[in-house]
């Protein structure tokens, strides 16, 4: 079986900068995958190369088993929504019409509905739209294309929280009705955490985390309270981000806590808070933070 997207050994070097460093990634079948990482980590470069808008220095990308480069049959099955998409000097209505010609599964009815929901003026020139409205237009095109491979690269510039919520809800509804392969690059991880089946994190051009979202949840926990009690609970576990003030301390422990741990924490009067997906990603981007755990029982 051919995977929907196969990326192997992908490297992209700009003059003095290694944007992607031997990236491998396979996405197969309908799913929503979150592509996360700090700004400049390589997320946009990766998506641009998958969408054949940029060429790699080494390695290759296959979409539906074929290279997408100058491959109209493959490109028509994809849609790529960029952050701050630029448009030619045309009206909103014309941009929608052009998109409808290009994408074979275009749903005009859905586009109309979304245009109404995002309150977009169809007879206005795109250059007269605000940044948020331009983002909304890109999102409408990205969803109405109903493309088998749908790439969103931080598509929400200038959109407020309400409009972003609308985007997530419509993406979810569309995905439920018409499953497709969605790659969503974002740094607003907690906003989309529930939508994601899989999280791929890129840091300095490399994939540093690739896991099912459900496996990540509950894997890290912050334990805080009196230092002696905290040490007693976390003894023997990998820890990170230890912080102290007076006799109090807070530390992040790896590995899920079981019922017994929770009972002990309660007996020791400790506070236990799971890390959100966003916080886990922050931890993953900082592997050097791991602390040696040679502390003895307090």
């Amino acid at each position, binding site marked *: 079986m051919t995977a929907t997207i196969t990326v192997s050994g992908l490297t992209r070097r700009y003059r003095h900068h290694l944007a992607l460093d031997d990236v491998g990634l396979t996405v197969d079948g309908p799913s929503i995958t979150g592509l996360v990482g700090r700004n400049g980590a390589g997320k946009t470069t990766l998506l641009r190369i998958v969408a054949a808008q940029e060429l790699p220095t080494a390695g290759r990308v296959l979409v539906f088993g074929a290279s997408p480069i100058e491959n109209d049959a493959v490109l028509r099955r994809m849609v790529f929504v960029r952050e701050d998409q630029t448009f030619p000097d045309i009206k909103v209505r014309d941009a929608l019409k052009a998109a409808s010609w290009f994408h074979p599964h275009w749903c005009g009815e859905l586009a109309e509905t979304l245009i109404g929901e995002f309150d977009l003026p169809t007879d206005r020139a795109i250059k007269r739209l605000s940044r948020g409205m331009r983002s909304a237009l890109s999102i409408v095109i990205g969803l109405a294309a109903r493309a088998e491979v749908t790439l969103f690269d931080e598509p929400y510039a200038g959109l407020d929280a309400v409009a972003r919520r609308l985007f997530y809800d419509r993406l979810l509804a569309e995905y439920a009705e018409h499953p497709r392969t969605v790659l969503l690059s974002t740094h607003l991880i907690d906003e989309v955490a529930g939508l994601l089946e899989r999280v791929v994190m890129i840091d300095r051009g490399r994939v540093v985390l690739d896991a099912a979202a459900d496996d990540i949840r*509950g894997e890290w926990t912050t334990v805080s309270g009196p230092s002696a009690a905290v040490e007693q609970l976390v003894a023997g576990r990998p820890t990170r981000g230890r912080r102290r003030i007076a006799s109090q301390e807070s530390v992040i422990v790896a590995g899920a806590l079981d019922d017994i741990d929770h009972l002990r924490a309660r007996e020791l009067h400790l506070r236990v808070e799971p890390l959100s997906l966003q916080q886990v990603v922050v931890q993953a981007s900082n592997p050097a933070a791991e602390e040696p755990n040679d502390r003895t029982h307090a």
Partner: protein
Amino acid sequence: MLDDATPLFTQIAQRLAEEIADGALAEGERVPSTNELAAYYRINPATAAKGLGVLTDDGLLEKRRGIGMFVAPGARGRLLDERRRRFTERYVQPLVAEAGRLGIDPDELVALIRQASHTPGGITL
């Protein structure tokens, strides 16, 4: 609506199990579909499906082809038995252990429980 501590599909399964145990979802009643759960909880449909799958594997839900998922006969009784067992494990055993440490004998403990349950605004189970 959902927390960060446990996998989302587990939380979906737990929510539905609670509704069945409380009788909010009666035996033989249709449970929300994958897409309804996904839209309501704002989660991936695959996650919602996995949550429903947990309950199906436990025999608490049954699939009727083409119509949807329904609460299986006997589901509520089984969930309540399970809850009672967990109640003993989670509350009664630690209570008895702590009472022992404080020198409260079982008769005294029973008297304390009686007292607390007769106090207005006291323990209600």
